[in-house]
């Protein structure tokens, strides 16, 4: 017989909670599900968490009449409070680091940490954009090295490195087209955009002063070549085509489209958001493209950061390159790389359409993307495209017996698999599927896009998902599809297990509260 433990401890599993037990907690937290107040609720203004050296301060005569009446009414939290606040908040986010993030057309792939490490080298991170060029040779060489990769991978003539994101790159491409048309002494005002395009395409065309005309899709989800050709004419400046397109399909007629547009005096802009499907396999330059932006934050693994920063270099054909923006990185006859700015533009880049933003572009993204590209090399990038396409087709064929795949019968997809809401029970929607996926521990796919498919579900697994990971995702999707077809009402109130239940977006828009009102 053992003596009783003098501390009173005894091994025990406790008792089972009664059915339906939902005890509220005093704190509002539930174990590792942590609630977090706003910083404004944690402290009053007037405090600071930064120790700033005391100086002998001189009088403020130089600022007489300009002084702020009172310091900004913002609290300052100490470091422990700050670290805890943001760490607790971070736990309310889903991220690629936690699991698959199969947002179609967003290419949420793993973000290698070597990229982060090297981008932080002081020689890249702690360099001012207006330092004398003699002190930034390495930075310019890095930009040029990335530029050469982008040109070679796309088979194009030149590249504008400064655009700050995909949509900014679209703008860059369209301004090149506009400048080229002006240089020919013509006035073309229309950009043709397929129905299935990203919303940024028509928005960019309008932002750049064009009017937009829509091109219908064929029954197999591609640009209708005949309809497009019929719209061409002396008023059409160009077309914006996404290839592979937003239905996850390669535009088989791309070369014919380019030839027709060129014959009619227009230019071809390609939205490169989906370049991950073809990198190292197909060069857009071989398809007659004149301009294409490359989202470094998609294909080349720079982090999305909860909504940016992006980076959208634009590769240009020989016809458009002379019109590219300033600054422009150019390799000189002696092999050195120079930045062409306003100072030299008149002699070195006389037809440039000008500057799109201050300084030289998203250097911090360039170093990350270059690190990624060098890691993969030409052979690895080809494998990236192959694995991305393989993973998407595996998802397509593992689900097309339980979900409607509108273009599934026509053949393989590229890097993303598209499904519709056809066949779900009356009253059950794509949104219910998405919210159900949240409860299953996955980030939902892109929903209700592209617009050409009803209740679209666009799944892009990317090449960085393992087969085992895909199998888990597929099992969840199959279960959800069966529940939605069977009319399982519990799906309509999903998510049940996330930090928040469905949020009232109508209320948010009707009475906007955009800042803390306390």
């Amino acid at each position, binding site marked *: 017989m053992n003596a009783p433990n003098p501390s009173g401890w005894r091994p025990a599993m406790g008792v089972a909670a009664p059915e339906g037990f939902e005890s509220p907690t005093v704190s509002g937290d539930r174990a590792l599900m942590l609630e977090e107040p706003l910083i404004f609720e944690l402290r009053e203004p007037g405090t600071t*968490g930064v120790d700033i050296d005391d100086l002998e*301060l001189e009088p403020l005569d130089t600022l007489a009449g300009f002084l702020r009446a009172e310091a900004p009414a913002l*609290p*300052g939290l100490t470091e422990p409070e700050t670290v805890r606040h943001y760490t607790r908040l971070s736990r*309310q986010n889903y991220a690629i680091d936690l699991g698959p993030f199969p947002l179609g057309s967003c290419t949420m792939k793993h973000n290698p940490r070597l990229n982060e490490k090297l981008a932080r080298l002081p020689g890249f991170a702690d360099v001012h954009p207006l330092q004398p060029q003699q002190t930034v040779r390495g930075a310019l060489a890095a930009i040029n090295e990335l530029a050469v990769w982008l040109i070679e991978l796309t088979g194009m003539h030149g590249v504008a490195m400064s655009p700050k994101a995909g949509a900014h790159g679209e703008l860059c491409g369209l301004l090149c087209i506009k400048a080229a048309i002006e240089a020919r002494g013509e006035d073309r005002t229309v950009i043709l955009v397929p129905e299935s395009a990203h919303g940024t395409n028509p928005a960019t065309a309008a932002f750049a002063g064009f009017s937009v005309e829509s091109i219908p899709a064929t029954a197999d989800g591609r640009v209708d070549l005949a309809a497009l050709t019929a719209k061409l004419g002396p008023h059409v400046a160009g077309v914006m085509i996404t290839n592979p397109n937003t239905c996850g399909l390669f535009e088989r007629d791309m070369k014919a489209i380019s030839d027709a547009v060129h014959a009619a005096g227009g230019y071809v802009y390609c939205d490169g958001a989906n370049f991950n499907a073809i990198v190292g396999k197909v060069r857009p330059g071989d398809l007659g493209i004149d301009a294409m932006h490359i989202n470094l934050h998609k294909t080349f693994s720079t982090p999305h950061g909860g*909504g940016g920063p992006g980076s959208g270099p634009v590769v240009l054909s020989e016809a458009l390159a002379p019109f590219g923006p300033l600054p422009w990185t150019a390799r000189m006859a002696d092999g050195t790389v120079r930045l062409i700015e306003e100072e030299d533009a008149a002699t070195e880049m006389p037809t440039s359409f000008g500057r799109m933003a201050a300084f030289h572009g998203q250097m911090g993204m360039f170093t990350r993307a270059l690190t990624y590209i060098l890691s993969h090399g030409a052979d690895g990038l080809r494998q990236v495209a192959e694995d991305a396409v393989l993973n998407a087709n595996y998802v397509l064929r593992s689900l097309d017996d339980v979900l409607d795949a509108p273009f599934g019968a026509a053949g393989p997809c590229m890097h993303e698999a598209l499904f519709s809401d056809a066949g779900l029970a009356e009253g059950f929607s794509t949104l219910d599927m998405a919210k159900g996926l949240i409860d299953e521990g996955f980030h939902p796919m892109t929903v209700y896009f592209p617009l050409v498919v009803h209740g679209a579900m666009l799944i892009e697994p990317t090449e960085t998902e393992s087969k085992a990971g895909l199998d888990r995702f597929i099992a969840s999707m199959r279960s959800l599809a069966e529940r939605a077809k069977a009319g399982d009402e519990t799906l309509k109130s999903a998510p049940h297990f996330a930090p928040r239940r469905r949020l009232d977006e109508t209320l948010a828009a009707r009475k906007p509260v955009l800042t803390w009102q306390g």
Partner: protein
Amino acid sequence: MRYLPLTSADRAEMLGVIGAASVDDLFADVPAAARLPGPVPGLPHHASEMAVERHMTALAAQNLSAGAAPFFLGAGAYRHHVPASVDHLIQRGEFLTAYTPYQPEIAQGTLQVLFEFQTQVARLLGTDVANASMYDGSTACWEAIAMAARITRRKRAVLSGGLHPHYVSTAATMARFTGDVLETRAPVLDAVPDDDAVIAAIDAETSCVVVQYPDILGRIPDLAKIAAAAQAHGALVIAVVTEPVALGLIEAPGKLGADIVVGEGQALGVGLQFGGPYLGLFGCREKYVRQMPGRLCGQTVDATGKRGFVLTLSTREQHIRREKATSNICTNAGLCALAFSIHMTLLGGAGLAKLARVNHARAQQLAARLAAVPGVTVLNRAYFNEFTVILPRDARDVVRELADRRVLGGVSLGRLYPQETALANGLLVTATELTSPEDIEAFGTALEGVLA
């Protein structure tokens, strides 16, 4: 390859499920002529982590980093001390590797940060509201001009001569294509900014007046006076702040009558990074919120009544409105907004005020030292942490010669305004809390040497 989890066996098994004989069959829609038979020729193949690190480190070593020399550059990008916790926290995978918060139930972390960021920015700028960020200050400035044109239905913008020339160029590029008219002027080397000329240029056709505060030469315009004049003509005032730390000390533009305030937020949390990624700040009066570009985060409740946050007023945005959107912006600067917000959370308003005071004190010390260099005069009457000095010869050459002596001695006006010979001897210099008395002395001595 270390980033690709599929094995050969996986690939074979998956092809079996798909019913394809090879991966190439999956690319059957690509015309044969466009399919490359192997890796793109002429490019290197994959490399180990160690090899890549060696290559990139060698490139970085060819640059003179700001921390390795006495450093005095500004002109729209400022070097400040960033507390260690900022960079640590933005590297948490839940922030770093999340997408735009389209599914709010599992993105409350990012959304609450954006809501806090919007509040911080609005209170800093003195505006009613602020958005969730733009690409940078220069693109935010053009978006503000376009927004003012939508609100006033006028297309003529008056830009002050003190607006950063890259911002002017960015706006000029866009205006050339949209039909907006920009009235621009080069800066004049006066002790005070061109407020009177700006006011004189405002008329009944003016959509907006764009005024940088402090301006490109470090001078501080009289925003209240300009705002009164603009208001009398029904024009909006857009204030542009390229150094947000200044707002710890000088009055918030929104309090002086600015209708829209845009800024470059890089100075807090983001770092120099050779020019990007940076962070566009954008605030305005509440009545204009539906004309604003960019993402907005708003407060709401969930199905059980708990407070939560969502992206809102998206009917302004491209993914809903397409060609009728207020802007084409999509991805913006989320992670930079996070860095800014964390840095601001550590500082608080009181810390920012003290930081600003220290910046100004260092600038005063720098001004006194440079004024003691023979042949050098300080232009400004008022300044925050940046001011202009006039040298006896072309400042572009002086900057290069200073760099040869390992002093990063400011930004020459010739670099910023290559066509304006009248400005050639101007040098823009900045001091921040990172500038030590030893740095200032080293600069003074080097400048004496170069000008001797």
